[in-house]
């Protein structure tokens, strides 16, 4: 009997521990998900205010401008339908170029997207899937409208 109750205690303790660990993982998961929005969704106000999210699309031609400090850079992300102005402090990825795909992560503040991270393509053939998705969505929407 004694050995049995000890065993039960061990199993019970293990199950409690397991549940605690799983609860921890799931809550951390929920709190740290970063959602993706297309520039059109952001323009429609569908993106959360004051919360981190991602926007992807093409870097608009002629939009990249350096502030006098040389470190802050402004550019715009577009899905061909809507344009979101972005501000970012730091070095840009090697493959960040006007007219090419990019994804930015950060928050929306006063209509300007304050990026903490800028992701560009890994190589010449590859476009960030989120950026491609955004442009595709906008073009789909455009064809639906024109019909």
């Amino acid at each position, binding site marked *: 009997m004694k050995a049995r109750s000890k065993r039960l205690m061990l199993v019970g303790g293990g199950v409690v521990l397991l549940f605690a660990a799983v609860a921890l993982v799931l809550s951390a*998961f929920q709190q740290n998900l970063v959602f993706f929005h297309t520039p059109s969704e952001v323009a429609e106000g569908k993106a959360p205010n004051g919360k981190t999210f991602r926007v992807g699309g093409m870097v608009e031609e002629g939009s990249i401008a350096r502030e006098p400090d040389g470190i802050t850079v402004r550019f715009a992300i577009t899905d061909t339908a809507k344009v979101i102005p972005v501000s970012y402090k730091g070095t840009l990825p090697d493959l960040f170029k006007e007219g090419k795909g990019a994804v930015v992560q950060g928050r929306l503040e006063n209509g300007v997207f304050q990026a903490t991270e800028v992701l560009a393509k890994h*190589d010449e053939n590859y476009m960030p899937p989120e950026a491609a998705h955004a442009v595709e969505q906008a073009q789909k929407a455009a064809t639906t409208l024109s019909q």
Partner: protein
Amino acid sequence: MIPELGHFALILALVLSLVQAVVPLVGAQRNSMALMAVGRPAAQGQFFFIVFSYVCLTWAFIQSDFSVQLAASNSHSATPIMYKITGVWGNHEGSLLLWAMSLSLWTVAVTVFSRHLPDAFLARVLGVLGMVSAGFISFTLVTSNPFERLLPAVAEGRDLNPLLQDPGMIIHPPLLYMGYVGFSVAFAFAIAALMSGRLDAAWARWSRPWTTIAWVFLTAGIAVGSGWAYYELGWGGWWFWDPVENASFMPWLLGTALIHSLAVTEKRGAFRSWTVLLAIGAFSLSLLGTFLVRSGVITSVHAFATDPKRGLYILALLVIVIGASLLLYAMRASKLTGGGSFAFVSRETALLGNNVLLTVASASVLLGTLYPLFLDALNLGKISVGPPYFEAVFVPLMTPVVVLMMFGPFLRWKDDDLVAAVRKVAPAFVASVLIGFGSAWAVDHVTWRTVLGLTLAAWVVLASVQLLAGRFKERAGASVGARLRSITAAWWGMWLAHLGVGVFIIGVTMVGSLDQHLDVKMKEGQHAELAGYTFVFRGAVDADGPNYDAARGIIELRRGERLLDTLTPEKRVYRAQGMPMTEASLDIGVFRDVYVSLGEQLADGAWIVSLYYKPFISWIWLGCVLMGLGGVFAAADRRYRRLAAREAAAAGQRVAASA
């Protein structure tokens, strides 16, 4: 002609792998020595043909034979010879061939070093390895033929991705693959044990050194990959929780659980079903890792919609491996009960807790890696799971693992006294809390993470000293040499690996708390300050390489008036693909790295320069080296060789008696 020979050799290897998968298993079932004996030559012949095939492919790269599709896409006539050779595995098809070659190498190693195993058991192990091999070689041949011709041939190749043109990338993939694939041996041993129904401690003992060596390779592979990311990606991070990294980290976590669980099964006969499940799980995660990295599913799940053949094939392979092994497990599970019982306070309990936590940690990485892919595949929206999630999960999950690691070696098997154990552990704990707070205060960074990290690290180091001292005292009368010799290699292995965890934690904590970073715009002659260092920009010069054009910045690193180093970060453009690359420059030290990379050049001629100060970052890799070294010691323990000799002698006697 040579590529066709390579292709043909690969087909022969497939035939031999099928022979190896079927004949020895039938032999083991019918108890036919003749059939079982086929396994060894089949495995060795297969190895010969795969190596031959691999050399043929490498030859196409070295010769810049751009009528071979793979060479045309991943090599260039001006690529340095080293990167022509490594370019072979810098792509999907070639890396599959490398995978098959690693598997074949492990199999041959098993045939060479496991002569002492019972014939039927070895036959089953070879049979299982043959099945895995047949699966992978047929996958390569059917969906991803590396010898595919490109007709008409192109005049020039597209070159290897510049990120992969780096010494770190020469050794990283082979190490990682040896690790991934090495778990197939642990898997094969577990399955062979399930098949034979012989699930005593013997198979755990046979499987232990193999599993440990595979784990060493995986540890080394991950560490080299992390080091490569650190200096090659140009922004000073050492781990990004990127799906590609996670793919190798999941089997590592489960593999770590497995080597500890195997210890319990070998020593005490307990945890048998758990060990079998871990062996199956670690190998399945290795397969999943290969799938994630090499199928393109990470870059876009929708890429599969256009070419689903590869994805479906490997997914089917995964389902068969997991499904069949779990089915076999379910059929034999009733035989897996029993083993040594143990009390609540015992080394077994500590190891069980550590196993559960490592498994949960592995599952949390799996969730974070696969969930976004699932959502995307089902068109339910796009999300990303970044470092904040993994950090939020890993600190609370790994802290108890380290605490259990502190208790484990002080606890006795089977039954121990909690009060006595706490008494043994307490002094080091109290001292390390003081050290943790004190050192966090000394570096002027008292946050709970820093204090926790430094406390745990100090505890690991102090406990290691205490363990060693305790071991030393055991034979009080003997000479120092005799005392050292009385400690087994396995014990040294445990000690080193655990100490490595402490060193690793110091590195992670210090970099996480105290690293500094500054992006500045610099013109020739201008200087910047960071972490007490002065950086003087001396302009940029042209520094073209064999297959790229580059600008090289000259930056003097000074402390006060003293010149410490001249750093030369580069901005390269690889000609073949017009791809820009940032090549960072480092001043490496024991207690800190200074890391400089070049951003873009502005219209007025000034450069954006990124400066980083990375305290204790090399301790991260030093910790990994100690862990890996620990594994080497553990696997080299004399008792495995003694055991092998004894069992071989016993087998010899049996043969003599039956003759």
